[in-house]
């Protein structure tokens, strides 16, 4: 990889300052960024590691019941510590990558990257989470802006992700056989005020809400309610692992399974 300066600040303020320079980039757990750097596909002049900032690590439950996950919290920590408060979220975190990856990879890193096949975007969008940064709060519905695109500004750091806890939820992931990322993953969450269905892995635009399914499930939260509904293959990803039609089909199957499991 190209060389760069490395900093590991211990406060958000210092991190923001360190990121202010040209071509500085934040480093979460590095589980995606480091392989990218090895391929020399990125050329930051400085990497600012967020793993030394204690204040943005950990899982807690807010007064309103929301599960709050610090931006630098690892997947393994979420899998362990969110299990009681938000089991579907914990289960999702426990399916990302592999154990060693989960010990390093962070929720902030995953959401900032917004890989179209990542799991966390489905949880954030499916839960209607709030992405909290050093500067502001962003609703998940406004945050995801297409493949690898988010509402984050240069140098903005995800400090926390706040998940409202649904009455019932489930994430169903269908593995891409090689990378074990989601070939398609569907997160279904039932709230008092409605149902949210978020699909990852399928669309070339990244994670999206399946509004038709949400409407049907709001009326009748049962797998059968999805019968007859289908997603269009237009805009779906097609690659050696599956055609757009296959991905569209899988989203329907997984949504039904998520409803059944929720």
């Amino acid at each position, binding site marked *: 990889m*190209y060389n760069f300066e490395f900093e590991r600040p211990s406060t958000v303020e210092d991190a923001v300052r360190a990121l202010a320079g040209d071509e500085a980039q934040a480093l979460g757990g590095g589980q995606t960024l*480091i392989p990218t750097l090895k391929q020399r596909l990125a050329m930051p002049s400085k990497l600012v*590691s967020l793993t030394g900032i204690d204040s943005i690590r950990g899982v807690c439950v807010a007064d309103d019941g929301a599960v709050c996950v610090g931006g630098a919290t690892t997947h*393994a920590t979420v899998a362990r510590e969110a299990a009681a408060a938000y089991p579907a979220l914990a289960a999702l975190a426990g399916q990302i990558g*592999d154990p060693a990856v989960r*010990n390093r990879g962070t929720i902030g890193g995953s959401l900032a990257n917004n890989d179209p096949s990542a799991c966390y975007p489905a949880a954030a969008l499916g839960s209607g989470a709030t992405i909290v940064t050093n500067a502001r709060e962003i609703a998940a519905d406004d945050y995801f802006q297409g493949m690898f695109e988010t509402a984050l500004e240069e140098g903005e750091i995800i400090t926390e992700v706040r998940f409202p806890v649904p009455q019932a939820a489930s994430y169903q992931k269908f593995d891409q056989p090689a990378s074990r990322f989601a070939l398609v993953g569907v997160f279904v969450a039932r709230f008092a005020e409605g149902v949210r269905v978020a699909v990852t892995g399928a669309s070339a635009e990244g994670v999206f809400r399946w509004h038709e399914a949400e409407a049907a499930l709001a009326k009748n939260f049962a797998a059968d309610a999805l019968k007859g509904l289908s997603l269009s293959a237009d805009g779906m990803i097609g690659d050696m692992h599956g055609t757009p039609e296959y991905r569209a089909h899988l989203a329907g199957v997984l949504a039904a399974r998520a409803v059944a499991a929720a």
Partner: protein
Amino acid sequence: MTSVSMTVNGKPVSGEVEGRTLLVEFLREGQGLTGTHVGCDTSQCGACVVHVNGEAVKACTIFAAEAEGAEVTTIEGMAEADGTLHPIQQAFQDHHGLQCGFCTPGMVMSAAALLKENPQPSPAEIRDYLEGNICRCTGYHNIVKAILAASGQDANAIAAE
């Protein structure tokens, strides 16, 4: 160049590294600990798994500078000083859980992390946990047996899957 210090296999070590120096490079080239291997460049094969502060980590996907002050354990730190194998190492030999040996250090380190979390895993739990460790030789069968045995269970329980 910046200097890093950490404890590796119980011994304090330090060295000068570039920002881009990976922990695995620091261990292999800086410390001569060549037991930790590199088998891929996409963080999937797991031949480089070591423990950082007691947790399994892919040493090819963490910068040396990120391990500043950490306690690092590599495959070289698993056996006793007199050469007595760690029970997991011994089980791998007893059950032929390795062939070419290249993935083995990572497998042993992952197995150790698994048994710390889950002292009596089922065969399915073992297979699931090894998602990030690729072996091309063994078909995993004898690795699963070895880990069952290392956890004090009957290695033949693999047949009951």
